[in-house]
């Protein structure tokens, strides 16, 4: 059962708090700017021969994926704060279903992640990537889907964390590997088979691949070292969508066990 008003107020609470965190906007810009203009420029000198796509352009979908990954995991980790400060109990004893709690948390995380992803789209012209309004909207839609999926993953993790102490472990063992094995900063098809296998199991790979599909020109069949998209767009969306459903289901099941 889904309670619309409960979902609304859980989302509203996160947005109110987001709005009160001044300075979070600067922080939102800092990391993507570093990647796009410092790392991207540096590696652009090193990496040549990607056909019509320059490295600076190639890295943009990856940076969008990174922004969404970090922001989604961070925002769902707020559940651990809620538990630490007791507020989670107020939510758990309310006469609402666990599904509504998870959906509410997922929507608020999605809004904040896709806003941040949307904001960095203003850098697109600076990188020489020219997109139309339809492409922008498509990109935003994909960003929302990927945000929802990764926030759900974050909620699933947060439901199993009792204290904030293990957060670094999560960062190093989950978030960073997801990022580095996603094709964000180098094409997956350059990796040795076992790493390539791992990156094929990574949902972020398909999210970023979907962005590449929209932003970068198709360069024939993806060959060795190609900087273009690897899979068809429909396949990317299907995988991310399925991942999303599985995560939500598992997160609801985990929430039922929380006391």
């Amino acid at each position, binding site marked *: 059962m889904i309670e619309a008003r*409960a979902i609304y107020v859980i989302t509203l609470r996160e947005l109110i708090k987001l709005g009160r965190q001044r300075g979070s906007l600067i922080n939102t810009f800092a990391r993507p700017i570093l990647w796009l203009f410092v790392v991207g420029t540096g590696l652009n000198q090193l990496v040549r021969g990607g056909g019509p796509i320059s490295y600076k352009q190639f890295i943009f979908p990856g940076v969008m994926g990174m922004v969404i990954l970090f922001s989604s995991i961070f925002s769902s980790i707020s559940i651990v704060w809620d538990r630490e400060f*007791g507020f989670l109990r107020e939510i758990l004893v*309310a*006469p609402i279903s666990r599904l509504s709690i998870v959906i509410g948390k997922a929507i608020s995380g999605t809004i904040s992640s896709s806003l941040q992803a949307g904001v960095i789209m203003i850098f697109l012209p600076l990188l020489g990537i020219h997109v139309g309004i339809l492409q922008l909207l498509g990109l935003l839609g994909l960003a929302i889907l990927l945000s929802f999926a990764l926030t759900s993953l974050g909620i699933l993790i947060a439901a199993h964390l009792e204290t904030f102490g293990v957060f670094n472990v999560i960062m190093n063992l989950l978030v960073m590997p997801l990022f580095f094995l996603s094709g964000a900063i180098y094409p997956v098809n350059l990796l040795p088979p076992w790493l390539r296998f791992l990156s094929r199991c990574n949902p972020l790979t398909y999210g970023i691949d979907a962005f590449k599909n929209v932003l970068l020109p198709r360069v024939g069949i993806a060959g060795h070292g190609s900087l273009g998209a690897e899979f068809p767009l429909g396949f990317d969306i299907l995988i991310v969508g399925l991942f999303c459903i599985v995560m939500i289901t598992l997160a609801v099941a985990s929430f039922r*066990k929380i006391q």
Partner: protein
Amino acid sequence: MAAIEVNGLVKDFGSLRAVDGISFSVKEGEIFGFLGPNGAGKSTTINVLCTLLRPTSGRVRVNGHDCMREPEAVRSSIGLIFQDPTLDNELTAWENLKFHCYLYNMERREMRERIGQMLELVGLADRSKELVKRFSGGMKRRLEIARGLLHHPQILFLDEPTLGLDPQTRDTIWDFIRGLRSQERITMFMTTHYMDEAENCDQIAIIDQGRLIARGTPEKLKQMVKGDLIRLRGGDLDGLRRRIRAHFGLEAEAGKGELILEVESGEEFMPRLLERLGAEIGFVSVTKPSLNDVFLHLVGRQIREEGADSKEAKRQMARAYQRVRWRRS
């Protein structure tokens, strides 16, 4: 209809039996005090009653709803005031209450009025736009009480409502709780460490090691301690104890740095005691039994001996239980 009915409730955490087959019922409109030392099973019982924990066995009904089969019906008919704060410090008082109204699906029209009314009731109306993190401990507790009452619960659960508050704030909160009962016909189920507060209850149940060991009105419980209590202090308590046994055939209980004697009439016994052993006694007092004495008599130790860190210790224990549970499931 009873507000709360508990029949043969058992709750295990792994191999540990936290609640061992307790049964009791609470009448509508009653203030019911649930007392016991730490780890006795109080919080576990409350958590089962408010559907946060599934019992291992037994039947629990709250407001006529089965806690296992209709948890959401139970939840919407009860209000909870927890031992540890459960407010969002980053929101204002008003926002915290508004959040609650939405969760309990209250009518939008009624919401504003009810929030205002509750803030007025707990004396926080002029602070409603302030962030909760700027509130003092007492203000936060009052706000939690206001929140617990917003959705017109039939039963209010109060888990240590005055723990960690200064005596003045404790008094305010008790005035408020008593006033509340005369205004809104509401049943209250509470746990407390303060025996003087437990005197305010209509009915009391004492739990120890997961079992109910006594049940009744404060007056009835106090009758379990026969007659009066004489407290003695002196240099050699062990010697004093032996001589009391030899002279009067009475067994003195050892308290913290004192001996406690139960006698039928303190006024008559005192002259005889002082005549025989007056030289060895440094301090003597006669008291009518309090609930604290009842507790000491039944459980063998005072309720508040655990010290100030008990709250944290309890929380750690609960976490350890939970970890075990998660690993199993």
